[in-house]
C-alpha cells in the first residue's frame, strides 16, 4: 500500500514539475505577450495542482490535506483573475 502511494506521489509530482518546465519554456519561447500568458496559466493550474495532488498521501488527514487544497484553490482563483487583468492591459496597449 505504502509503495503504491509512493509511486503515485512520484508520478504526480514529476508530472507537475514537467508542467512547470513547460510553463517556463512557453514564457520564454512563445512569440507574443498573450500566448506567453497562456503558457503561464498552465503552470499555475496544472503544475501546482499535480504537485498538491501528489503530496496529499504524505500529509496529515484531514486538516493538512484540506490546507494543501486551499492553497491550490487560492492560487487558482487569483491566478486566473490576474491573467484576465493582464490580458485586458495587453489588449489596451496593442490597440
Amino acid at each position, binding site marked *: 500500500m505504502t509503495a503504491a502511494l509512493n509511486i503515485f506521489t512520484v508520478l504526480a509530482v514529476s508530472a507537475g514539475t514537467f508542467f512547470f518546465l513547460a510553463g517556463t519554456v512557453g514564457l520564454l519561447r512563445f512569440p507574443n505577450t498573450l500566448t506567453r500568458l497562456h503558457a503561464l496559466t498552465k503552470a499555475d493550474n496544472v503544475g501546482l495542482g499535480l504537485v498538491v495532488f501528489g503530496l496529499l498521501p504524505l500529509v496529515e488527514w484531514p486538516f493538512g490535506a484540506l490546507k494543501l487544497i486551499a492553497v491550490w484553490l*487560492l492560487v487558482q*482563483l*487569483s491566478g486566473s*483573475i490576474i491573467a*484576465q*487583468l493582464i490580458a*485586458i492591459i495587453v489588449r489596451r496597449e496593442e490597440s
Partner: protein
Amino acid sequence: MAAFIFNVVLVALLLAVATWVITSRAAFSAVVAFVAYGLLLAIVWVELSAIDIALTEAAIGGGVTGMLLLGAASRLRETEATAVSTSVPLRLTAAVLCALITAGLAAIVLFPPNTVFTLAPDAMAHLLESGLGNPVAGVLFVYRAFDTLLEKAVLVLALVGVWSLAPDRFWGGIPGLQVYQQPNSVLTLLSQILPPVGIVVGIYMFWTGANNPGGAFQGGTVLAAMWLLVMISGLQRVPSTNRRALRLLVIVGPAIFLAIGLVGFALAGGFLAYPAGYAKPLIIVAEAALTLSIGVTLGLLAAGPPERMRQR
C-alpha cells in the same frame, strides 16, 4: 546532498536577482526583480529554519512592499530619463569600498569566534513561565517586550510622518491610493472572494502564533493586504484620515499593550512584567489588539499621504 544542491541553486538565484535589482536600467524592471527577490528570500528563511521570519518576509517582501514600490515606479516613470549617472571613478571607488566591506563580513562568517553566544536557554527559561509555545513569540512579548512596544510606536510615528507630508490643505483628507479605474471588472470578483479567506488566515496567523510560527505582525499584514485590495477594486472607498474611528484603530493596539505594561508596575513589580498565571491571556489580548492596529496602520502606510478632500 539534494538539499545542498537546492540551497546552491537558491543562493545563485537570489544573488542574480539582487544584481539585477541594482544594475537594471529601468526602474520598473528593478522593482519587479525586487518582488521576485522577496519571494526567494522567504524560501531562504525557511531553509534557515526561521519560519516566523519566512512568514513575515512572504507577507511584506512579496506583497505590500511590492505594491508600494510598483505604485511609486509608475508615478515616477517620466523622471527616469533625466537622471545623470555617476562618474566612472566614483563607481570604481564605491565598488572597491563595497568589496572590502563584503570581504570583512565574509571573514567574520568564515572564521567565527570559537565561543558560540546564544541566548536560547535564557529565552526558553522565560518561555516556560509565560505559557507560550512559540519561542519567537516568547522573545517578542516576554523577553524583549519593550522592543516590541517601541516597534509598534515606530509604526505609528511613521504613519504620522507619512500623513504630515500632505500639503497643508489636504491634512485629514483622503490618501492618494491608486484605485483601479474600471468598476465592475473581474478585479471586483477577486476582492469579493479573497478577503473573507484572507481574514480567516489573518486570524489564524495571530491565533497559531502563540504556539507555532506566526503572530500579530504576520496576521496584521494579511489584514492590511485584504483591506487594500477592497479599496483598490473600488468596493470600499478610501477613508478620510481625519475619521476618529480610523485613528482609534491605529492606536488601540499599542495603547492596550502599554496599559498592560503599566499594570505590570502595580501587580508584578515592573514595566511589562506579567502577573504570575496571567501571562498568556494578557499576551493574547495584547496580540489581538495589535493585529487589528497593525493591519490598519500598514494599510494606511501603503495608501500614502492624503491627496484630496472628501467631496460634499
